[in-house]
């Protein structure tokens, strides 16, 4: 995390009708730190991440990233990337097209795009699988594509929404060891929830 995420001074609340999903949460995360949110199912971890990413609007409260109030800012305008629980890879795009998607739509200069996607693919150990569709990848490989797609943008805040939950126990252990042959490369302590 390059920029600090603050939730001050007002605590954040999210309601869906009568249901309170997040009730008065307030915390500050320092720049360069890795934080894991732990809690039982349905306690609001994903909702907090979605509010940070801009996919949900808080019912009340303020979200600041790098000291800047981003509460009302759209997801596309925040310097935040997120790896989804289901990976959300674009099924009609190849691995390379998935990874470079963020660079293309964000309108970054061409040299940055080319080097960025190559670095991202190499980082997660997917070199050589550029032309494959997500349906032709294993679960671990799909997860790595999702991670590469988020990393390539070099965001200020990187959010992981239980990215290991779709993998079986063996792949999770391999992932935790950082074994690139059979599972995803990123360290498990990058997971936000």
């Amino acid at each position, binding site marked *: 995390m390059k920029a600090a995420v603050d939730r001050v001074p007002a605590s954040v609340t999210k309601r869906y009708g009568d249901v309170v999903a997040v009730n008065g949460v307030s915390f500050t995360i320092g720049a360069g730190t890795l934080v894991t949110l732990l809690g039982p199912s349905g306690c609001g971890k994903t909702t907090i991440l979605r509010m940070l*990413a801009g996919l949900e609007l808080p019912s009340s409260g303020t979200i600041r990233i790098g000291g800047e109030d981003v509460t009302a800012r759209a997801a596309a305008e925040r310097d935040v990337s*997120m790896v989804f629980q289901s990976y959300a*890879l*674009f099924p009609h795009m190849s691995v*390379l097209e998935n990874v470079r998607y963020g660079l293309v*739509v964000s309108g970054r200069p061409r040299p940055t795009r*080319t080097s960025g996607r190559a670095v991202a693919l190499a980082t997660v150990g997917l070199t050589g699988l550029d032309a*494959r569709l997500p349906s*032709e990848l294993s679960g671990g490989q799909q997860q790595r594509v999702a991670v590469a797609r988020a990393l390539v*943008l070099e965001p200020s805040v990187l959010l992981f929404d239980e990215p290991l939950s779709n993998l079986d126990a063996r792949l999770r252990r391999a992932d935790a060891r950082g074994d690139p042959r059979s599972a995803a490369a990123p360290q498990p302590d990058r997971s936000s929830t």
Partner: protein
Amino acid sequence: MLSFAIPGTVIGVAYILAFNVPPIEITGTALILIVCNVFRNMPVGVRAGMAAMSQIDKSLDEASTVLGARGFTTLRTHPAAAAEARHRRGARLQLRARGDHAVGGDLPRLRANTRWATTYIINRVVNGDYGVAIAYSSGADRADAGRDLGRSNGSVGERRLGRRAAGVRHAPHRRARRQRRLTARPGPA
């Protein structure tokens, strides 16, 4: 759905009457056939579009947004692209089936000495030859069903379910095509 509830003949006559006078005078032209068929079949397209869109995972849109795409870019690149293939297949099947029926109905009118199976069957019923009429009807139904099924299989193609089956049978040329495309465009599009 009104255009489906009303019989096609009624719609056709309505179009002829409505567009027989200025300012839009297209009765007797090919344009009225196109316009009539487009509006009559529009509910199919709308419903097919809604069905295709509703099957697309919401997280794809969210992922696109988080990666920096605006609303229109997201719509253009994901739901529309993902639905495109389904639309194309559905449209091809619909075109085949509807086209056959439409042409089948129109051609006999073009030649007076052409014997029309439907008229022949109706005449047999009027004459009380129910056995002959039923036999012809059954034959026509089976021919229709066989033709439509055969063509739909040919035009829509076989189902390719399963990652392994799809990968083994179809991946090599698809991968080669994608690789060629990526090689031809070294920089991102």
